């Protein structure tokens, strides 16, 4: 059991309880929280755990800030969408789309890494911002291939849709259909990817990354080629992000700039990493779960607050659900200042 999580234990009792709750909650989500909305939430949490963990691989372990993570995510998602759209529905299209997306993503990351990382790590942040924005513009313009702003709706194999009934009986009042299969495909792939990442950061390779993060100059002096390590981790991270994108695309059966490429997702990822805790894979789990839940259930509360404060000046505008990002931004800066290790770091310190 311990070797499954690469002996990287949570090292805090409260954290262990939280993580177990999240894991069990996601594993039995369709039965514990029936209803399509909570299934959507659970799937989103699972995908974002992988996406955020892959981002943390770069940020928390490599010490590199990237703004192209949604682009890598988008490569995977659009890979599935374009393959299913052009090759027709079927498992082979899904496989081709996913593999193509992952490969393009990994290669693009290597190229960007080699251009920018050999000079300065901060170049990477600026260059990825420029390239990701250019890519988003290009995707919305090449509407014949990508569907432009409207995105693409496509069909996935019938076995993964609600129309497919595995058995007529219900288990705990939940019908066993393709949707359930789709959820478990997503869940187990996400769990697998997460365990792989946990393995990577606890390998000798991961130790070198941590050394580079702490002091790249010294790591170079000891004899590690910093550029190679940083480029490698970028590439791995990009490939996993693309895999997460592919999983999410299979789940949603729709891909568009809003779900796969927008800057808003990039901001969400940054917030999840920082809130959960940089430099630990468990942080991604906590961060993504807390954030997605808050996004789904706190935003409606803001509307309530707006209605309550209607007569006051300015306050209703500040509390408007559309100003959600304002409060997140504030929370983000405060966490970087005061809790740079995030929720996980806090819990570990106390426990």
């Amino acid at each position: 059991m311990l070797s499954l999580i690469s002996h990287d234990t949570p090292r805090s009792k409260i954290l262990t309880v939280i993580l177990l709750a999240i894991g069990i909650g996601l594993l039995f989500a369709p039965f514990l929280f029936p209803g399509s909305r909570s299934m959507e939430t659970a799937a989103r949490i699972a995908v974002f755990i992988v996406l955020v963990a892959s981002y943390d691989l770069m940020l928390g372990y490599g010490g590199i800030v990237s703004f192209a993570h949604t682009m890598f995510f988008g490569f995977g998602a659009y890979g599935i969408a374009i393959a299913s759209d052009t090759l027709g529905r079927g498992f082979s299209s899904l496989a081709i789309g996913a593999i193509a997306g992952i490969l393009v993503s990994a290669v693009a990351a290597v190229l960007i890494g080699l251009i920018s990382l050999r000079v300065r790590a901060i170049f990477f942040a600026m260059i990825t911002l420029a390239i990701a924005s250019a890519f988003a513009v290009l995707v919305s313009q090449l509407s014949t291939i990508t569907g432009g702003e409207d995105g693409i709706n496509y069909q996935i194999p019938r076995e993964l849709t609600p129309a497919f009934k595995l058995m007529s009986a219900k288990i705990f009042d939940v019908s066993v259909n393709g949707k359930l299969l789709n959820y478990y495909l997503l869940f187990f792939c996400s769990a697998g990817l997460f365990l792989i990442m946990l393995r990577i950061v606890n390998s000798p390779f991961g130790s070198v990354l941590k050394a580079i993060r702490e002091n790249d100059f010294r790591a170079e002096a000891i004899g590690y080629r910093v550029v190679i390590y940083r480029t490698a981790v970028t590439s791995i991270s990009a490939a996993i992000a693309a895999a997460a994108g592919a999983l999410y695309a299979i789940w949603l059966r729709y891909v568009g700039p809003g779900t796969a490429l927008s800057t808003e997702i990039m901001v969400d990822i940054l917030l999840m990493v920082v809130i959960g805790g940089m430099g630990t894979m468990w942080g991604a789990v906590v961060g993504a779960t807390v954030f997605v839940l808050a996004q789904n259930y706190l935003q409606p509360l803001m509307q309530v607050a707006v209605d309550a404060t209607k007569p006051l000046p300015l306050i209703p505008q500040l509390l408007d659900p559309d100003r959600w990002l304002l409060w997140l931004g504030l929370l983000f800066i405060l966490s970087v200042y005061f809790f740079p290790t995030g929720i996980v770091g806090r819990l570990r310190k106390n426990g």
Partner: protein
Amino acid sequence: MTAHSLAPEHKPKMEAPSIKQLASRHAPLLLTIALIIAGYFAVGSAQTWLTLTVAGLAMGMMIFIMASGVTIVFGLMDIINFGHGAFISIGAFVGASTLAAMGGFAGADNIGLNLIAMGAAILTAIVATALIGWLFERLIVAPVYGNHLSQILTTMGGLIITEQLIHVFWGPDQIFMPKPEALKGAIVVFGAAIEKYRIFAVGVGLVLFAAMMWVMAKTRLGLIVRAGVENPEMVESLGYRIKRLFIYVFMAGSALAGLGGVMWGSYQEIVTASIGFQSMILVFIVVIIGGLGSVGGCFMGALMVGLLNNYTAFAAPKLALVSNIALMVCILMWRPQGMYPVVKAK
């Protein structure tokens, strides 16, 4: 035997730089000229080419105004400000509000009144962004000096907050920002239509560039700033309060962004809160191409990006932004630190 003859005979002389060295030093300038010439052959028609070239230069100048703050702040303070776009947005919104408030002046059929309105818009934007820049430096940047990773994160957070606050104060919709009457329309030169506003932008950009170069090269302030870029500890140990200088430079950089925001906003005539973030894409390309920390490099980089953007927008509209990325990649393969690498004494 006199002491005079003890000294060895030598006649120091400066070796004139060879053609190759000169070409290498002025390569960015030559490249920009080559780009203009290549643009002529790509476009084909002389009139269109002239229009596009002026448009490219105008765009370049406006990007330069927006980008110069990033490069100066980085050069002196070693701070990479991802929140720079916030000042561009604020500048544009404050400028638009001022222009709207002075609608009578801006809409009058009198070039003097028009310029007063534009001047007032620029002035209010500069004052507002300088003040907010001061706040930004104190609240968001100061706690994370020396840590690039945290800087990128907090300044990005600052950008998000500022964008949202603009929505709170100016509403969620885009606002219209008409140019003053005298800057509307075009004049015809050699059969080519050239927008008046573009000539205005080129003029403002050139004056600003000249002024910056003069301040850097001829004044005491410029001397301290240049010394600070090379070795801040030494400047501090010589008795200058480098921290205070940092704040002034940050405010100046923010004010430049505000000015750029007004110029860019009234060029597009439509202002949205995300104008700053969108401009940051080109700003980053420009400062990377030019060499982080170099004002001259930023200027040449901005011109190249502006020109290339306009030529490709004419030839293949969808590839305008991609062509700039390609330009950046090519330049980085040629000179990994940018066209004018800034060497630090560290």
